């Protein structure tokens, strides 16, 4: 059964419909998520704080080493060393959705790219795909292949950056020494099983080179971002905001010379991936062996969602009607995982299960009070919620922070009313389990793992295997991201080979001409992915102009607040499950490293997360809502 909470059933042909006899199927009181964890109420927490001196508030504002503005509020029990309340706060007020309203849809490619300073290209492509769907424009095969390569290169910038610049320092000697001296002492004598691949004899040596600013791994990651960027600009013109993404493909001129230049850079990621996966395997296994409680750091239910990415050049036709079919032929299979089980790979089912709630967000409700639901069904006739992005209206309302009321600029997206997590690892998980990969010599989906055959470089040819993990936590997120670097490099290699085949056939066409219709209403959605996972842009065109534009990013999911059913967002849930393993009880010395490991393992990207509206359709000001003063305003 695909949906357990929403009253959606399927007929004999697999077409979804709303169960008969449910008067108000999407009402929050009608459809309640079952079996979900719940935050304590604000009153409960207040009482606990008043009565127990060992229960203390811990605020992280800002959370450093993340992209953008994230603050995190926790209440921790220092006797049981557990977190009893966790609140994720997107503190920056920005705006894209309503900036887009009234504009020519082509502007979306350039404007939404600015949502992120790392992964602008993914927004450009996702908006191009939404336009393609709305206007009926299909890129030629080479355009699809080059687009795939471009985005793979963007991820090859993103993954090393996160692993060794943002998250990596949490596992460095400089951090482990002060927080867990006995662990660092143990690491000094712990032999690294994969020393012959990464070159570090002991885990201690490895931790030394994860040190920020000076560690060799930190500096090497900076260098690798350059390699990826250089390859990217060969086809995208510039980084991070590409100039060659268009509806219907790419405007780049692709020659043999460009392909060769690109390959010399791509090839450097084969060896680098071998090294990255060996490092994160060794680190993860060391922590698990040293203290099995580390398996709880950042743990949560394996509830994941991914919109899939990297279209097959013979399958993608840009239609919504065929999205389920072309989606399943992608190099990264779309899908939804609930409690570790893959429940669908169908983009239609994925799409109709998505809703966005604003109970604890600085926005007004747009549904209820008799407003008309603009789209009761999607273009294929499947039922849509009034809370679905195609029906959403962004109505910001800045106000003070209050845990009972509103505390973040992020919304709460839910799938089948459940709190889902997005990430590079969701991409691996779906693809490993679904077994729908296109035939190729480098990547094999086994049903429980992904086997990745990395070509020879300075290191020998190597087969590595990412296995669906038995536990889901901060360490597995990082390990997954390391394996996703290898996966991404091999997807790029497959697409590079296919592109070379097209060039050999004399096919150099990378885009299809198009016109924006000036009449009628059209819907489109870009299903794509960022380095951090799931990404969708939902577009409504009206007489040639954007009537509605809604972006849901991976961090919209991950940083989401507690919802109206008290179900925490993924960061919050992961932190609530995190034991405090730091070797101190002294609040002055306590760094909250385990909490930070839990949060950073998601690779937070706050610039993408929050989107504003202003009546003029332009940003008129930025508001930074500081987490200080919570006590005064909060319940």
């Amino acid at each position: 059964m695909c949906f357990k909470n929403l009253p959606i059933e399927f007929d004999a042909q697999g077409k979804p419909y709303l169960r008969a006899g449910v008067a108000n199927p999407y009402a929050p009181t009608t459809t309640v998520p079952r079996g979900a964890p719940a935050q304590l109420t604000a009153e409960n927490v207040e009482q606990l704080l008043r009565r127990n001196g060992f229960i203390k508030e811990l605020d992280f504002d800002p959370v450093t080493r993340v992209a953008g503005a994230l603050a995190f509020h926790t209440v921790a029990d220092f006797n049981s060393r557990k977190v009893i309340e966790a609140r994720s706060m997107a503190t920056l007020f920005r705006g894209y959705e309503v900036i887009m309203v009234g504009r020519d849809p082509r502007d979306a490619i350039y404007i939404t790219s600015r949502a992120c300073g790392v992964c602008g290209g993914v927004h450009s492509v996702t908006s191009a795909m939404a336009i393609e769907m709305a206007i009926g424009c299909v890129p030629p095969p080479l355009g699809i292949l080059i687009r795939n390569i471009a985005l793979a290169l963007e991820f090859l910038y993103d993954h090393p950056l996160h692993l060794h610049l943002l998250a990596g320092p949490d596992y460095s000697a400089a951090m482990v020494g002060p927080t867990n001296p006995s662990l660092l002492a143990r690491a000094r004598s712990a032999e690294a099983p994969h020393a012959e691949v990464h070159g570090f004899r002991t885990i201690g040596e490895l931790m030394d080179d994860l040190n920020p600013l000076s560690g060799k791994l930190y500096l090497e990651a900076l260098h690798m971002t350059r390699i990826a960027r250089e390859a990217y600009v060969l086809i995208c013109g510039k980084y991070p905001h590409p100039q060659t993404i268009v509806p219907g493909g790419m405007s780049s001129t692709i020659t043999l010379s460009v392909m060769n230049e690109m390959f010399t850079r791509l090839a450097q990621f084969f060896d680098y991936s071998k090294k990255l996966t060996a490092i994160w395997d060794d680190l993860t296994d060391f922590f698990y062996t040293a203290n099995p409680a580390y398996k709880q750091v950042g743990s949560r239910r394996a509830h994941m969602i991914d919109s899939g990415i990297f279209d097959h050049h013979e399958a993608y036709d840009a239609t919504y009607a065929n999205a389920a079919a072309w989606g399943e032929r992608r190099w990264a299979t779309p899908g939804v995982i609930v409690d570790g089980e893959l429940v669908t790979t169908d983009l239609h089912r994925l799409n109709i299960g998505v809703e966005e709630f604003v109970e604890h967000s600085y926005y007004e409700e747009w549904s209820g009070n008799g407003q008309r639901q603009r789209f009761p069904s999607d273009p294929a006739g499947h039922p849509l919620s009034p809370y679905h992005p195609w029906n959403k209206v962004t109505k910001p309302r800045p106000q003070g922070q209050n845990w009972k009321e509103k505390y973040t600029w992020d919304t709460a997206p839910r799938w089948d009313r459940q709190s889902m997590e997005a990430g590079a690892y969701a991409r691996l998980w779906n693809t490993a389990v679904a077994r729908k990969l296109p035939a190729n010599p480098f990547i094999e989906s086994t049903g429980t793992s992904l086997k990745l055959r990395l070509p020879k470089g300075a290191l020998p040819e190597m087969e590595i295997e990412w296995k669906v993990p038995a536990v889901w936590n901060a360490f597995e997120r990082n390990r997954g991201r390391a394996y996703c670097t290898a996966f991404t490099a091999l997807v790029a290699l497959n697409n590079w080979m296919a592109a070379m085949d097209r060039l050999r056939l004399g096919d150099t066409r990378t885009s299809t001409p198009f016109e924006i219709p000036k009449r009628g209403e059209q819907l489109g959605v870009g299903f794509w992915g960022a380095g951090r996972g799931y990404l969708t842009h939902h577009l409504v065109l009206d007489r040639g102009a954007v009537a509605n534009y809604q972006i849901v990013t991976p961090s919209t999911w991950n940083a989401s607040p507690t919802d109206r059913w008290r179900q925490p967002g993924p960061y919050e849930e992961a932190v609530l499950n995190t034991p405090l393993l730091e070797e101190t009880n002294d609040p002055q010395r306590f760094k909250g490293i385990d909490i930070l490991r839990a949060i950073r393992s998601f690779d937070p990207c706050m610039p993408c997360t929050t989107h504003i509206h202003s009546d003029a359709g332009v940003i008129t000001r930025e508001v930074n809502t500081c987490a200080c003063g919570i006590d005064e305003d909060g319940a």
Partner: protein
Amino acid sequence: MRVIVAGVGYRNLRDHSIGVEVADRLETTTWADDVVVEDLSYNPIAVVQRLEDEPPEQRFQRVVVVGAVERRGRPPGTVAAYRWDGVLPADEEIQRAVTEAVTGVIALDNTLVVTRHFGALPDEVVVVEVEPAVQEFGDTFSEVVGRQLDGVCELVRLLATRGDAVEQLPCAPLGGPTAITSTS
């Protein structure tokens, strides 16, 4: 002496675009062979890599950086020029600067801190800052900043070509004293 004149800022962000505008204007004028004018308004790590790409014997010996920076207690339109003393903040602050660099933030202070930390800057770094009045989308300057544009271009040209002018500047930390200062 090889000199690079670098504009730092965002395009279409009104007063915060002054560094870019100055670089654009000066790029189109005639310079001696040993002066390069560039817009360095991108990821400071990439700026490090750009500066390190110069062959060792041709590394820049002076950098003149120009951009808008908000400092407390300075009236909008203030122009401040100084030789940066090159003193870096604590490691934690440098880490923050690197994080912002790789995640897309473009700011004059960040660019200087990151490029200095990674050894890409010459000893002689001249900073020309303009205090902005507005930060919003648009391709025009506020009146107070717009009034300074020609003067800033002249000042930057002077500091790029005249060592004696640079020597007259105070040596100061980031945001430091206002030896050549104008609010008119």
